[in-house]
């Protein structure tokens, strides 16, 4: 009896776990939809900034700005975006692996790196690997707010302007589609030149003939930091969306696994029970036979 009962107990606990993982999957799905909506809503801002930048480029204003100039990297900054919680497959470890590889590379080039991390998982994983973290953020969950990201971005801009950092890399999980999220390293500072995509569109844009107040240069001066902040914000949004997708997928797999496990445990349990019954019948029959004699 002992074996059958133990199997039954295990089956019960697996069932409970399946309930939990299924709930987590549903929660992650709901959060993913919300995060996705936010991410889509945030695209307009970037689109308009790019449009203005293209207009500035099309009037032939020279795009020169300290944020765009590529200078030799003597000091670098790395920002690692992970989640606060686990149970989301390889989401956190992929980002941490990417970050550690990047830090190793800077170390081999003997460039000191100012490392910051967001998310408890990333913070503890990096600390375990002996990385000194300058800043730790744990307040970003599935709904990063621009008002919370902006101060971080402004601090980087100031450090860049003051020359305390020459480069900023953000390691995060980029969201391509629901089936594809990749941990990547993106260089946010120096900013990538905004007019890379112009060229062919310039002639069509020129027909708009915008005036600039006060001047194209002054707008450019203001718009580049804004564009940097929105890119940084996009990284946070992407990381949040990817985390929910990763958790959704991981929990779906866990639920399916639990189903399989329950099936095989049930089979084992039934077999154990049946053999126990058979054994008992044999015993009774044996007793009857013995009494007959």
């Amino acid at each position, binding site marked *: 009896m002992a074996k059958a009962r133990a199997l039954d107990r295990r089956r019960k606990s697996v069932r409970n776990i399946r309930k939990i993982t299924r709930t987590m999957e549903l929660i992650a799905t709901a959060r993913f939809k919300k995060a996705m909506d936010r991410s889509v809503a945030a695209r307009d801002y970037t689109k308009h*900034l790019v449009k203005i930048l293209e207009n500035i480029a099309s009037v032939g204003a020279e795009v020169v700005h300290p944020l765009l100039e590529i200078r030799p990297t003597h000091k670098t900054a790395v920002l690692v975006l992970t989640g606060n919680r686990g149970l989301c497959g390889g989401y956190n470890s992929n980002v941490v692996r990417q970050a550690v590889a990047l830090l190793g590379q800077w170390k081999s080039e003997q460039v000191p790196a100012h490392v910051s991390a967001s998310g408890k998982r990333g913070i503890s994983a990096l600390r375990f690997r002996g990385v000194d973290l300058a800043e730790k953020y744990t307040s970003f969950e599935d709904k990063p707010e621009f008002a919370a990201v902006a101060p971080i971005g402004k601090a980087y801009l100031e450090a860049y302007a003051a020359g305390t950092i020459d480069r900023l890399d953000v390691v995060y999980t980029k969201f391509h589609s629901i089936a594809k999220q990749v941990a990547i390293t993106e260089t946010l500072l120096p900013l990538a030149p905004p007019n890379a995509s112009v060229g062919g569109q310039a002639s069509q844009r020129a027909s*708009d*003939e*915008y005036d600039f107040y006060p001047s194209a240069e002054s707008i450019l001066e203001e718009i580049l930091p804004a564009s940097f902040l929105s890119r940084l914000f996009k990284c946070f949004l992407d990381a949040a969306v990817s985390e929910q997708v990763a958790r959704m997928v991981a929990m779906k797999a866990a639920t399916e696994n639990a189903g399989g496990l329950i099936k095989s445990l049930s089979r084992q349990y039934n077999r154990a029970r049946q053999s126990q019954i058979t054994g008992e019948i044999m015993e009774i029959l044996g007793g009857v036979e013995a009494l007959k004699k």
Partner: protein
Amino acid sequence: MADTKQSGTVRCVIVTPEQTSLDTQARSVTLPLFDGQRGVGRGHSPFIGRLGAGEVRIVGEQGAASDAVRRLFVEGGFVEVGHDTVTVITQRAIPAEKLDAPAARAELEKLAGSRAAGDEAIDARLKAEQAARALVRTATRGG
């Protein structure tokens, strides 16, 4: 699309990094440019301008009374004016009725009491003070 053809109205869109917070048709829009206010109606010549801190006033919104005014506080950013659209691109847009006047005034007083040394810090303080003043102005004007 028929809306944009309607004579005399201009489409006003306010975009923040988080979302498009407003998309409406209005008779005219008053913008806080970096050096003062500017009103824009339909058919204004296209321009791109820098915004300072201040209030955006949207007059005669569709579906409201013709002299109804919707006021929002914006802190910096840009405006892109086309023939029939006004797009405000800003990091922060707060409806005036949601502003907290006493808190804004306290912030301004705190700034007025602070000191700054060095050109950049003085610049930054001046900017912050202007923004705070504009915030108080928008908050206390009442709608």
